[in-house]
C-alpha cells in the first residue's frame, strides 16, 4: 500500500485532569496516525487512557476539569483539534468525525424517538428538508440491517434490544458519512453473537463509505479480526504501534508480549493449564515512577529502565511502521536478568 497522507495524525497528545487531590496526567505524549479507510485499534488494560485519548480527540471531556496540553497536536484536514474553538469543533463533530460508545443502553436519549435523534444529526450538518431527512434516517436504519425500519423509526430506545440500539448508534454516527469513526469499546456490553454481527457490520460499512475507524477495545481477539494497525497503551503512554500481523507475531514491548500471552487458547494442549497473568498492578497516576512505567512488572527490567523513560522509537530494521517504547525490545537478546526479578520469569508456557 503506498503510504497516503494520514487523515488524522496525533502528536504528543497530553491530557491532565483537575481533581480534589491536585492535577493528574491521564495520557502523556500519545502519538499515532490514522490513514483513510483504515481501522486502527487502540488496546490496553482498563484505565490505561484509551477512552481519554478518544474523548480528547473529540474534545468531549468537560472543559472545567480537563486540560489538554497546548503542545498536543491533533491534526485533522489541517486544523489542530486540540486548540480548535467550539464552533469549528461543532462543525466537525458528527459530520467529519463521529463516535459511538460502549453502553448502548444509556447512550440514546430515553425521551426522544429513534427517528428524532437521527434526524437531529442530519439537521445540524445537512440542509435536507424534513421529509428528506426522514427518508435518509430510514435508509440508514436499513443500512445497519434493522428490520422494518419504517416502524422502528418512531419507537423509543427502551423498546429496542442492546444490539439493536448499538446499530442505531452506528446509523446515527454514519448518517453524515464522516471520514473518521471512533468506536469506544462498541461491543464490550454486548454478548458474543451480537458482537460479531456488529463488527461485521462496521467492517462492510467501512469498505462502502471508506470511513477510517479507530476501534478502542481491551479484547485482543477483536483487534486481530478487524484492525489493520494497532497501538498498545499502558498507564497513559503508547508503548507500541504497528501493523496487526507484526504486533501479534513479533511484539517488541514485553507488555505487549505479556498481553498476547494472557489470551486463553482453546485446544487440548492448553487444557488444565493456569492462565498466565501479569504480576503487580498498574502504577497510580498520582505517583508515576521516574523511568519506564512498566519497570516494576517487566521481567527484562534493567537499572536503565528505572531512571530514564524510553522514547517511542522504530523497531530495528522495520522503519516507521512499527514503533516501540522500550530500552530492551524483545528483538534484542534477553539482557542479563537482575537479581530482583529472578522470580518473574515470564517466558511463555514455561510455567511448571
Amino acid at each position, binding site marked *: 500500500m503506498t503510504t497516503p497522507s494520514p487523515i488524522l495524525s496525533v502528536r504528543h497528545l497530553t491530557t491532565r485532569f483537575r481533581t480534589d487531590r491536585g492535577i493528574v496526567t491521564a495520557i502523556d505524549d500519545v502519538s499515532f496516525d490514522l490513514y483513510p479507510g483504515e481501522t486502527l485499534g487502540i488496546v490496553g488494560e482498563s484505565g490505561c487512557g484509551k477512552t481519554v485519548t478518544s474523548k480528547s480527540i*473529540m474534545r*468531549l471531556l468537560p472543559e*472545567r*476539569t480537563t486540560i489538554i496540553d497546548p503542545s498536543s497536536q491533533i491534526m485533522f484536514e489541517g486544523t489542530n483539534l486540540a486548540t480548535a474553538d*467550539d464552533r469549528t469543533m*461543532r*462543525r*466537525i*463533530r*458528527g*459530520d467529519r468525525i*463521529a*463516535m459511538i*460508545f460502549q*453502553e448502548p443502553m*444509556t*447512550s*440514546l*436519549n*430515553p*425521551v*426522544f424517538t429513534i427517528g428524532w435523534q437521527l434526524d*437531529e*444529526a442530519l439537521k*445540524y*450538518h445537512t440542509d435536507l428538508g424534513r421529509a428528506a431527512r426522514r427518508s435518509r434516517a430510514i435508509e440508514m436504519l436499513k443500512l445497519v440491517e434493522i428490520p422494518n425500519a419504517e416502524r422502528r423509526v418512531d419507537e*423509543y430506545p*427502551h423498546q429496542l434490544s442492546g444490539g439493536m440500539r448499538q446499530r442505531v*448508534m452506528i446509523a*446515527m*454516527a454514519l448518517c453524515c458519512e464522516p471520514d473518521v469513526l471512533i468506536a469506544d469499546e462498541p461491543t464490550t456490553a454486548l454478548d458474543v453473537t451480537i458482537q460479531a454481527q456488529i463488527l461485521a457490520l462496521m467492517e462492510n460499512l467501512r469498505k462502502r463509505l471508506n470511513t477510517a475507524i479507530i476501534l478502542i477495545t481491551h479484547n485482543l481477539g477483536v483487534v486481530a479480526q478487524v484492525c489493520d494497525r494497532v497501538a498498545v497503551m499502558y498507564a497513559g503512554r503508547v508503548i507500541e504501534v504497528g501493523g496487526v500481523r507484526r504486533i501479534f507475531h513479533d511484539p517488541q514491548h514485553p507488555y505487549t508480549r505479556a498481553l498476547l500471552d494472557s489470551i486463553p487458547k482453546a485446544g487440548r494442549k492448553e487444557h488444565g493449564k493456569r492462565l498466565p497473568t501479569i504480576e503487580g498492578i498498574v502504577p497510580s497516576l498520582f505517583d508515576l515512577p521516574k523511568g519506564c512505567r512498566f519497570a516494576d512488572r517487566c521481567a527484562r527490567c534493567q537499572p536503565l529502565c528505572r531512571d530514564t523513560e524510553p522514547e517511542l522509537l522504530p523497531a530495528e530494521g522495520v522503519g516507521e511502521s512499527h514503533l516501540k517504547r522500550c530500552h530492551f525490545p524483545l528483538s534484542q537478546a534477553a539482557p542479563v536478568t537482575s537479581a530482583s526479578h529472578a522470580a518473574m520469569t515470564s517466558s511463555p508456557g514455561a510455567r511448571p
Partner: protein
Amino acid sequence: MWSYVARRLLYSIPVYLGIILIMMGALRLRDPVSAYLGKNATAETALLKKASMGLDRPFLPIGIEDPAEPFGIEPIVEVGRVGFYPPLRTQYVEFLWRILRFDFGTAERPYRSWQFESDNVGAKLADAVWPTLKITIPALVLTATIAILVGLLSAAYRGSVLDKTLMVLVVLGMSISVVVFIVLGQVFGSSWLNGKLGFELFASNGYEPGIQNWVKYCALPVIIGVVVGMGYDARFYRAVMVEETSRDYITTAVAKGAPRHKIIFVHMLKNAMIPVITRIMITIPFLITGSIVMEYQFRIPGMGKLLIDAIVNKDFPIIQTFTAVLAGLFILTNILTDVLYALVDPRVRLA
C-alpha cells in the same frame, strides 16, 4: 390507563376514611359547643347550639350514652352500657354522606358556619378559594420558573463563580426562617417602600377582589413566597440537572455536534422535567391551604386564614369540611402526578 386510575382511587378510599376519622375524633376530644359560647352563655343556649349541629347524636354507630345528655335515639342493640345505634343517624356517617353529595349548605338546606351565622360553610369555602389561588398559583409558577432557571444556569456552569454565588445565596435564603422574611418583608415591602416611592405600590395587608387589585394586595406576598420557596427548589433542580448532564446520551448529543443551548434546553431539560414536574405536583394540594402564616400575617381571607380562624374560634363545621375537602384534593393530586408522570416519561408503563 384508566384502570390504573380506578385502582388507585379504590386504594385511597381507606386512606380518606382514616383521615376523616382521625380529624373528627381529635375535634371531639373536648366538648366543642361549650367552648364556643360567648359572654352570657346559658345552659339553654348550649343545648340549642348542640342540637343545631347534630352533636347530640352519637358519633360512631357504637357509643356510650351520657345519662346527663341523652342522645335521644334508641340504640338498636344494648350490650351493657355500649349501644349500637342506627349508622345513618350518627355524625360520622352523616358527614360522609354530606361529602359524597358535596353539599355543604344550600339556601333551602342550610349548613351554617358558627362564626358567621348567616353564611353557609360551602359558600364560605368557595369565597376563600379564590384569594388563596391568587397568591399561590403565581407564587408556584414564579418559584418554579426562577428555580429551574437558577438550577439550569448553575448546572450548566457547574463549579463556576456564578454557580457558587447562586448556591451560597440559596443556602443563605434557606437558613433564615420564613417568619422573619414575612415580618420584615411586610414592614419594608410596604410602609418603608411606599414612603420612598411616595405612592402606594404594595398594601401592607388586606384584600380586595378583582384582578386590578392583584398588584396592590397579592404582589408582596407572592414575592416573599418566591424568595422563601425558591431556595429549596433551586437546589433540588440543580442536583437533578447536574446528574442529567453526566449521563451518556448527553455525550452522544455532543458527539453529534449539537450546539450547547440545544443540549441544555432540549436534551437535558426534557429529561430533567420528570423529577421537576413530580416536585411541582407535590406542592399542588398545598396550593389550597396556601401559606397559612402568610395569609395570617397579611390578613388575606384565603383558605389558610379561614382554617386558622376556625380553629382558634372552634368553628366546628368549617374545620371538618375544610379538612375533608383538602384531604380529597391531596389524594386526587397524587394520582394526577403519577398519570402526568407517564405522559412525560415514555419509559413508564402504567401497569
